[in-house]
């Protein structure tokens, strides 16, 4: 509390309050305005269903339906990374919010963290609905392994994934229209290399190894191994090793986000591009 009677947060408290302030509209918006349910869950279910029927048309074993359903649910997170993390600061710049973030005392890194927390809740809700509806519709049965390990894999995957999203947000900040096009470009090619609709080992060792830079590749592979234990040949790498690599990726991406943000903010300020609006 200062002389004016206004409470002023500092240090970690300022960081946390800023992050929460940015996460708040995403979390509250998810539950307050429910019209998204129609578009943002029906649409992925339709896409998922199409791939399920392809497997049925070629008489694939029933587990493949489960692979598609789990991959289809995880798409919610990837789309959230592309459109609500990576592109977000670019949108904010376009709408005039970014300048408000910059002149406020809250750290921009905390804003990125808030975007990630809010986005995780938002897309987690969507993914859960898609998974539940698709599981029910297509009669998927799971033979689960260790549930605590499954929980750990999911959390570490999300940490790495949203760390990547935070880093992309910083990089996209200096982009113009390219940001939109890059996000658009990173959909189907990533669904392909990360094995959203089939076990990633199908694209070969080196292909899967290169795709492992995208945290969802290993995360999805480990989750499938833990949900469909009936097929021991399914996985690309052992779950423990995938969990370790994901933890390393999480550290790299979150630190990368911090460094990229500082560097690009400096470049943006110097070149006067931080809050310019180009259409």
């Amino acid at each position, binding site marked *: 509390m200062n002389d004016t009677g206004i409470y002023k947060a500092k240090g970690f408290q300022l960081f946390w309050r800023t992050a929460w302030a940015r996460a708040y509209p995403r979390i509250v918006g998810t539950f307050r305005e429910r019209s998204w349910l129609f578009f943002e869950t029906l649409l992925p279910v339709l896409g998922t269903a*199409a791939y399920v029927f392809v*497997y*049925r*048309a070629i008489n694939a074993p029933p587990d493949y339906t489960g692979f598609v359903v789990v991959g289809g649910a995880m798409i919610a997170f990837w789309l959230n990374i592309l459109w609500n993390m990576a592109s977000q600061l670019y949108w904010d710049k376009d709408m005039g919010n970014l300048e408000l973030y910059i002149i406020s005392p809250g750290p921009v890194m905390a804003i990125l963290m808030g975007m990630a927390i809010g986005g995780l809740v938002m897309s987690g809700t969507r993914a859960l609905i898609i998974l539940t509806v698709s599981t029910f519709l297509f009669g998927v049965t799971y033979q689960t392994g260790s549930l605590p390990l499954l929980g750990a894999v999911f959390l570490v995957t999300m940490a790495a994934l949203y760390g990547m999203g935070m880093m992309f947000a910083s990089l996209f900040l200096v982009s113009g229209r390219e940001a939109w096009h890059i996000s658009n470009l990173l959909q*189907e*090619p990533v669904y392909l290399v990360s094995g959203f609709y089939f076990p990633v080992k199908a694209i070969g060792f080196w292909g899967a190894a290169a795709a492992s830079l995208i945290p969802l590749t290993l995360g999805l592979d480990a989750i499938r191994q833990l949900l469909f234990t009936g097929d021991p040949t399914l996985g690309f790498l052992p779950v423990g090793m995938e969990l370790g690599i994901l933890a390393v990726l999480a550290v790299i991406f979150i630190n990368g986000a911090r460094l990229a943000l500082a560097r690009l903010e400096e470049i943006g300020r110097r070149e006067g591009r931080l809050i310019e609006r180009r259409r």
Partner: protein
Amino acid sequence: MKTVGRIMDLPLVRQSDGLRTFITASWLGWQIESNWADPLLFAIYSIARPLAGVMILVVMYSVVTGGAGPEPVFAYIYLGNALYILVGQVITGVSWAVISDREHYRTLRQLYTTPMNGYFYLMGRGVSKLIIAGISVLIVVGIGKIFFHLPLNFAAINWPLFFASTALGIISLAALGLILGSMTMMMARHFWSLGDAVAGGLYLFSGAIFPLDVLPAALRPIGFIFPVTYWLEAARRALLGPQAALFPTFARFSNASLVGILIVFGLVLIVFSSFFYRWSLHRAKEKGLIDMETAY
């Protein structure tokens, strides 16, 4: 721009508001789509998504069958997905023109103060997407022929059936795109997803990547109410000839009946989209939605 200027000077074009608007909008659409990157990057961008989309199906197929081959069902899936590139691009292209003009460039109000024909303007904005999608289809089919041994024999292709069905299919798609674009003018939320939602629905129900027979019996009739279903069937038959996989749902349709159905769909959709566009425009103006910037 010189070429566009020459076309605009043609007597027929000079006399028609609609044609002038259409050509100008086509040129504008092409500039918007392509001028953000150098040609090589733009070409990679244009082909990467559709190619990845079809490769997902190739890998799915090869994982289950042990290697993508020239079996009729593989050709059915591959060609269906390749041709479907046109569906997604044309349908979403027109509705995105409304979104980008209204929300991103914020020029919709200026556009509607000019003497242009709005219906032809939106049609024209879809042309660039059609061109890009057409090139993508050719490349994806070419890759299928070279690398996956699709049973395409250029001498045996029924070209009249292919061109007639594709032209009619594109007319229906453009009209569907216009209907979605008109709906977008009246929407404040979720307009981003409208084109994708319809394209996603058609992907599932039109038998694009699997035969309709695979759908549960109760859902199969949905496929018959969309022109895309008939176009994909006709185009596949034209391209594959006797190699085309025939499934019971379409066995009773002759090639001529498929073309006939597409003509009816085309006419009905063009007339309906024209009325619907006028009604939507009026309603958007009446409700003050025409120049809305939602930042949604």
